[in-house]
């Protein structure tokens, strides 16, 4: 190559020098409030992000958006006397629609009559098969199974989740997905109102 004067290398070095200098300048401009604050974390994920891009994980966590899906969980309502009725009626739609078939449900039966009761006796999800697709939550007609936001699930053993580990309260669900919860509660209230209106 007859035109190897090194101009290209110098241009490239100029770019990296500029970015290097920016890391210090931006810290100075923010005057110490750039780290461990919510505003700082939000700035580093915005369109004007310059300088150090790192979000230091255990101390600073990027807030997950509402639609984020990780492992599923079962929702139970909280009654006035401390009872915790499960919303799940063990209809089995989530088990039927799960792509790798990682949900096992045993429907309870009434011991006296032998007819099925809409309540799960056993409910297992193998988190080592679950692909976090969200189809179970999308097609549940009773808003009973939803996708969790908690991703800190590393453990020293395999992850097979049973009914106790999977159950979380409706209040927790509303705290992680407020917009969806509001819309679903309104839809359920409207359906209940129309049903009581019809039965009268």
């Amino acid at each position, binding site marked *: 190559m007859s035109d190897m004067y090194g101009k290209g290398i110098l241009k490239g070095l100029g770019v990296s020098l500029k970015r290097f200098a920016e890391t210090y300048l931006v810290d100075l401009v923010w005057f110490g409030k750039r780290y461990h604050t919510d505003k700082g974390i939000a700035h580093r994920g915005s369109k004007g992000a310059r300088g150090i891009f790192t979000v230091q994980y255990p101390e600073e966590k990027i807030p997950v958006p509402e639609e984020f899906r990780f*492992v599923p969980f079962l929702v139970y309502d909280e009654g006035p006397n401390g009872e915790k009725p499960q919303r799940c009626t063990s209809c089995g739609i989530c088990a039927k629609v799960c792509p790798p078939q990682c949900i096992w449900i045993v429907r309870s039966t009434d011991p006296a009559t032998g007819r099925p009761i809409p309540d799960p006796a056993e409910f297992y999800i193998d988190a080592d098969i679950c692909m976090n697709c969200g189809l179970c939550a999308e097609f549940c007609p009773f808003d009973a199974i939803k996708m969790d936001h908690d991703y*800190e699930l*590393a*453990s020293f*053993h395999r992850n097979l989740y049973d009914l106790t580990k999977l159950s979380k309260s409706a209040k927790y669900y509303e705290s992680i997905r407020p917009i969806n919860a509001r819309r679903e509660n309104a839809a359920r209230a409207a359906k209940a109102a129309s049903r009581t209106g019809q039965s009268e």
Partner: protein
Amino acid sequence: MESTELNSPDYKIPPELQSQVAITSLDKIYNWGRSASVWPLMFGLACCAIEMICTAASRFDIARFGMEIMRPSPRQSDLMIISGTVTKKMIPIIVRLYNQMPEPKYVLAMGACASGGGPFKEGYNVISGVDKFIPVDVYVPGCPPTPQALLNGLIKIQEKIKGEPIKTSRWYQKGPDLAEIPIPMLGPDLIDPRKIPLIVNVEKI
């Protein structure tokens, strides 16, 4: 780590020496050194490998934990992050790499596929979890686990390393060396040498 953590509580240091002397247990300082400089083996199999690369990139910097030196050679690494589906064609190579790593060595199964077969568990070429062949220390579920979840898993590995007392750890016991895991062979289907007596038994019936 603060210097107060290193102090063993049941030995009092005379006041005139407190700024110059710190007494700690050998375990704590040895494990602190090891846990702060774990070198992962650069071993990306499938989609989880992309999240591993993103963890090593600038947003979720893995260099803050001392792990940015991802060694391609197993002879120079401590931690094997199995990121991705383990297939029958690949498992002899994984076992060979695990045997080549020097002790003390750790294994982190990242993602659903490495922990337990994942969504592809029913396939004819997929192994239901890498712990069928090599011992796994930490399982990180998810498909794929986000970089923050992987960092959580790496912090768990660091906790495990910090909690290993030298006296009872299996790396330093006297006696025969930790046996090498026999390498599986590829025949009409995968053959695990540890199960050959069982196969011979079954096929005779």
